[in-house]
């Protein structure tokens, strides 16, 4: 299973973390610091896997961002590497050629999308189309609620005039 997902920038800034195994606050900080050091220091053209504390970390760099997923020793590394790419493609489709800034200012969106892709540390949906459809549906639910709220407040505002 995937124990956690970590997005860090080349400068070591955290852009997203998601923990599927119980890590305490302290452990989370430690993991990020340690792993950041290991992964950011790796040169280009090396393999995408790193041994780490009895686990394996599969990572891939996209522009200025490193996408990392921590898995068990005997999990299938390439499968997870392509889950990362699958995630990136979905982000790309949603934001329209995604860049780091998109993920900074819309980090909550990245969380929504991740929740449609992974659950309990396992892949939930492998169809990009389905994920896109579900996210769009969520967005429209939020929009509708917003409109409703504004129309209600309008009504109230007018009523109290």
């Amino acid at each position: 299973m995937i124990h956690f997902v970590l997005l860090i920038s080349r400068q070591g800034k955290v852009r997203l973390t998601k923990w599927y195994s119980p890590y305490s606050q302290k452990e989370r900080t430690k993991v990020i610091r340690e792993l950041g050091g290991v992964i950011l220091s790796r040169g280009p053209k090396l393999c995408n896997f790193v041994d780490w504390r009895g686990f394996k970390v599969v990572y891939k760099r996209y522009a200025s961002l490193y996408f990392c997923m921590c898995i068990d020793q005997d999990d299938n590394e390439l499968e997870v590497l392509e889950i990362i790419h699958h995630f990136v493609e979905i982000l790309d489709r949603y934001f329209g050629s995604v860049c780091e800034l998109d993920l900074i200012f819309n980090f909550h969106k990245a969380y929504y999308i991740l929740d449609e892709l992974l659950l309990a540390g396992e892949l939930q949906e492998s169809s990009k189309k389905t994920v896109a459809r579900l996210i769009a549906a969520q967005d429209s639910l939020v929009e509708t609620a917003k409109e409703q709220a504004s129309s209600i407040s309008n009504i109230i505002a007018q009523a109290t005039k």
Partner: protein
Amino acid sequence: MSMHGMRGLSVFISEIRNCQNKEQERLRIDKELGNVRNRFKNEKGLTPYEKKKYVWKMLYIYMLGYDVDFGHMETVSLISAPKYPEKQVGYIVTSCLLNENHDFLRLAINTVRNDIIGRNETFQCLALTMVGNIGGREFAESLAPDVQKLLLSSSCRPLVRKKAALCLLRLYRKNPDIVNVDGWADRMAQLLDERDLGVLTSSMSLLVALVSNNHEVYWSCLPKCVKILERLARNQDVPQEYTYYGIPSPWLQVKTMRALQYFPTIEDPNTRRTLFEVLQRILMGTDVVKNVNKNNASHAVLFEALALVMHLDAEKEMMSQCVALLGKFIAVREPNIRYLGLENMTRMLMVTDVQEIIKRHQAQIITSLKDPDVSIRRRALDLLYGMCDVTNAKDIVEELLQYLSSADFTMREELSLKAAILAEKFAPDLSWYVDVILQLIDKAGDFISDDIWFRVVQFVTNNDDLQPYAAAKVKEYLDKSAVHETMVKVSAYILGEYSHLLARRPGCSPKEIFSLLHEKLPTVSTTTIPILLSAYAKILMHTQPPDQELQSQIWSIFNKYESCIDAEIQQRAVEYLALCQRGAALMDILAEMPKFPERKSSLIKRTEYSEGDTAEQSAIKLRAQQQTSNALVVTDQHPANGATSPVPVGQLSLVKVPSMMTTENDTSTDHPLSQQNGALSNVDPQPPSADLLSDILGPLAIEGPPGATVQSEHNAVSGLEGGSDAADGSAIVPVDEQTNTVQPIGNIAERFHALCLKDSGVLYEDPYIQIGIKAEWRGHHGRLVLFLGNKNTAPLVSVQAIILPPAHLKVELSLVPDTIPPRAQVQCPLEVVNLRPSRDMAVLDFSYKFGTNMVNVKLRLPATLNKFLQPIQVPAEEFFSQWRSLSGPPLKLQEVIRGIRPMPLPEMANLLNSFRIMNCPGLDPNPNNLVASTTFYSESRPAMLCLVRIETDPADRTQLRMTLASGDPTLTFELKEFIKEQLISIPTAPQSPAPPAAQPTPQIPPNDPAAILAGLLS
């Protein structure tokens, strides 16, 4: 795409980004936290929008690595908001900020449950997602039935059901009991008929977790998995959106193959054939393409297929196909594939008997040790460590030593530990071992733990021949300019004890040795000084006649340290000084250290117990756990025997048949077993050959009806137990039950002989049960797995398996379940450790009841002497020097053997090879002679080289002269007898010339080498 942004949040993020330095950022964040805290305090004035915004801000701050120790309550409370936008934020931020152990989560259980059982699909999804990501044990207990209902509901849409499947998986991990409901296995099987691939993918993940813990009840899922895999591999009926770079859901393919790896075998021939066809397609049909994602995805599937093939232990041909593929992979440019090639080769080593084929890639693997990528270097190291045996130990260890000087600092400790272990395990001779360890200390002293140098000292102390060599060797190192402190420690110890053995060599007088050591004293730390002081005292004692000058020198040093601040140094100085002045007492007290008791290397222990040390080891552990769990789960699975115990995954402990049980029998079994041995050499139908078929079709099988042989064999074996057997039997078996009316299928003896030569096959079969066996042998360790397969539609009960081990084997059998369910197969791992050479055999006393039939059989286990041999090719010069140094009885024994089954010389060489005694062609100039070598592994001694020479008479093929030599008299004798048993044909007449030396054997208690020797000399 709609971006319903939150202005306040964006502004805040921009401000953080604009901070010039960390300090500014901290100030800005503190300000914001203060602000949020204040706003939360008077919650009433907060609009839902504001609440949402603040919660997101908190998450952002948290993500940047700042402590957010408030606001959890507000976050959790958003979950119960009536509207979707707030609820959504509540759920998602809660699952990011908190983990399952957080108290606040409990507050939400009721709301979460209401959302799950409610009618609102979007709320269901939110709740399932949070529980699936951070649900703990309490959630498992209160929500599992509702989640199950959603998963199985026909009215729920796929988006809910796939989340329910994974949510259930999470809850199952927290509490495995939640799926212990009747009929769950059937429903699981139904889920595999699912059309929606999203739901199917999630359900497959659930299945993997379930079968990894207990495959027995999920047999019905097996054919369905194969079907799914076939459908995907043939790309039948897979919607376009579920293909990834043209590959039908690679993820589902991988998961399905993963699930299949938890079933021990596939019995149904049709299913098996289909699966192998699919696997063959994957193995052969995966090409390297330009697109990196397509390549990764197809290779993800390929590597999983490889793992499945290994697990299924396919035909030899397919296996070598796999090794060939891996061999190709480790040489490609793409680093991921190189990495995985090495990793899978290492896994392959553990699963099957392909070591020889893997060895062909040794050169390439060694190249990988110099790969620019440390991840790959680690895999190469693991693989080299795993594939090392006596034949390549020298090469591999040399490479490791060479690599040590350039290796990363992070790897050096592991590297030197592994080199030390390999050197110890596979040393062809001990002087080489000493060389290796000294080189290690010289090259990587900082990374050498004390264990390593303690161990070499132990070896030197225990082997008299080694002492002068080691002393001379450490002196050479001390002569160098820069010496590591650990080297000073070893040298001081060894020179103190043994430098007197060198006294006659130039430069090795006590005085010279002393000054050589004493030069180092100013450079060492306080932990080394006591060792030096002891060395001085020993040198002084060994200097006979006493050297006044040396004495006063050393005394003055002791004098100096008498007032040392370090207590240990001071004490030694005071004591040695006092002792020196007492003359004779010094001799007694400083006498040579006694031999160390033989024990398991602490180094090897270290690697066994160290956690997550390397990939390879944890893989071993994993596999061990899997096997253990297989055996245990079976016993867990009978609720009738009591409540099912919640065995946490990964903490399964082996329930061993305590050796006490067998020691009770020891006195009674030992003797009969030795008789059995005598009997066996008569019963042996023919020397086993490498081919099972030729065994069955061999002359003996034709001579008489197989049933008869079986019966006699059976009687021979069970009769060995003597009168006590009958008594035992009547005690267990009620009067109306008949014992052993069941006829075995096939010839037990032949099955046994076949298994002496190969490592997997059927040990026993009758109409009700089949006992298969699969063994792996490594040095003096053996791991066997007994596969007990119930062939019927009714359970086998009162199943009992007891191992009667001979004195030279330590055998531990994991718990055998009392009942074998219908058509089920149970795996029982069995660990064997060889203590010393002996031809005695372990016997499996196996019984079960089927209906009114009580069946009891005693089966010899193929843990024969030859299983602890490792073939080795010895170069001519070494062979001859060893041959000469082992000069005569009892280390070298010669015997003329008559009554040999005539066979041409090449056939005899093959026969020896099949027992892992390796023919060394060209060593003996006489074409009628045969020379062979092997190494023998036992716990009590390091690997022991054995040399064999057979001289045949071309005029009379029924006789030959055999000479056998090894460093251990018992081994020489036992191996000679073993080979003899294999060569002699069954005596046709009672007066056939028995070899004189063989006669006394049966009366000799088997575990007493002295008695054997006495017998030999008489």
